[in-house]
C-alpha cells in the first residue's frame, strides 16, 4: 500500500476534463466554476461532424475550498487529483481564486 497523497492542492488534468460540471454541482462550498463551449469536429470518414465540449476556464476558489475532496472522488474522468503543494499565500481575496493556468498540476510553489 502506498502512502496517501497529502491533501494539499487539487490539480486539474485539462485534457481529461469533459466540462461535465459534476464537480461544480457537487461542491458543498460552491468553490468551483468552469466555462466551456461547443465545437464541431469533423473527422475523416465520419458521416457527420461530432460536437465536443471545450473547456475554456476552470477556477477553484481556495478561499472557499475546504479540501473535502468530493470533486476528486466524483470526477468520472479522473481529471482532478490531489497533488502535494504549498504556497497559498495571497495578496488579496481574489488571488485565492486559481484559474486554469494555476491548476495545471505544478508541484512547486506558485
Amino acid at each position, binding site marked *: 500500500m502506498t502512502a496517501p497523497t497529502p491533501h494539499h492542492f487539487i490539480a486539474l488534468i485539462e485534457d481529461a476534463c469533459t*466540462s*461535465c*460540471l459534476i464537480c*461544480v*454541482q*457537487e*461542491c*458543498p*462550498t*460552491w468553490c*468551483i*466554476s*468552469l*466555462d*466551456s*463551449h*461547443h465545437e464541431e469536429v469533423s473527422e475523416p470518414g465520419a458521416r457527420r461532424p461530432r460536437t465536443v*465540449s471545450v473547456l475554456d476556464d476552470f477556477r477553484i476558489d481556495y478561499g472557499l475550498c475546504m479540501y473535502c475532496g468530493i470533486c476528486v472522488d466524483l470526477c468520472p474522468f479522473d481529471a482532478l487529483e490531489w497533488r502535494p503543494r504549498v504556497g497559498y499565500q495571497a495578496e488579496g481575496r481574489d488571488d485565492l481564486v486559481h484559474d486554469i493556468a494555476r491548476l495545471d498540476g505544478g508541484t512547486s510553489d506558485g
Partner: protein
Amino acid sequence: MIADDMLEVAVAEWAEAAREARDGGLPFLELLTVVDRGDELDVVARMSDASGRLSLGLMTRVAADAPRIESLAAVLPAASWHEREVAEMFGVVFDGHPDPRPLLLRGTAGAPPLRRGTPLAVRLERAWPGEVEPASRRRSRQQLPPGVRPEWLPGGSA
C-alpha cells in the same frame, strides 16, 4: 475511557447533574454545544477527569421554538464562553448567565445562524456555479444546489 457514556437528564436537573459530575471526579468541561433535531434541540456537554481518560456526556432536550435552560456557569465557570457561543449560534437562552453578551458575532440581529431552519444568506444571494450549462444539456431531474434547503426558497415547503 467511557467515551460512549451519555447520560440524558431532564432540563430541570441539568445544572444539578453537572454539579454531581463535577463533585464526583469529573471537574473539567470539555464541550458544551447543541444539536438541532428539528422540533427539539439536544444540549450536550462532556465532562472529564484530570487525566482526560474518564469522561461523561450529559444531554438534555429543550423545545426548539423557545429554547431555555439553566446556565452552568455557576457550577463550571468554563461553561460561560460555550454558552455565549451556543446562545448566539442556536438562540438558546441561558438563565442566570453572568455575562450574556455575544461571543463571536457582532450584534444579535437575525435568526441564529447554526439552526437548520436559518437560510444561509450567501447561498441565496450568489448564483450557483452549477447552474451554468455550457454543454446546453439540461438535467432532467430538478435538483437543489448543495447547501440549500427547499424551505428557504419562495413557495418551498416549510
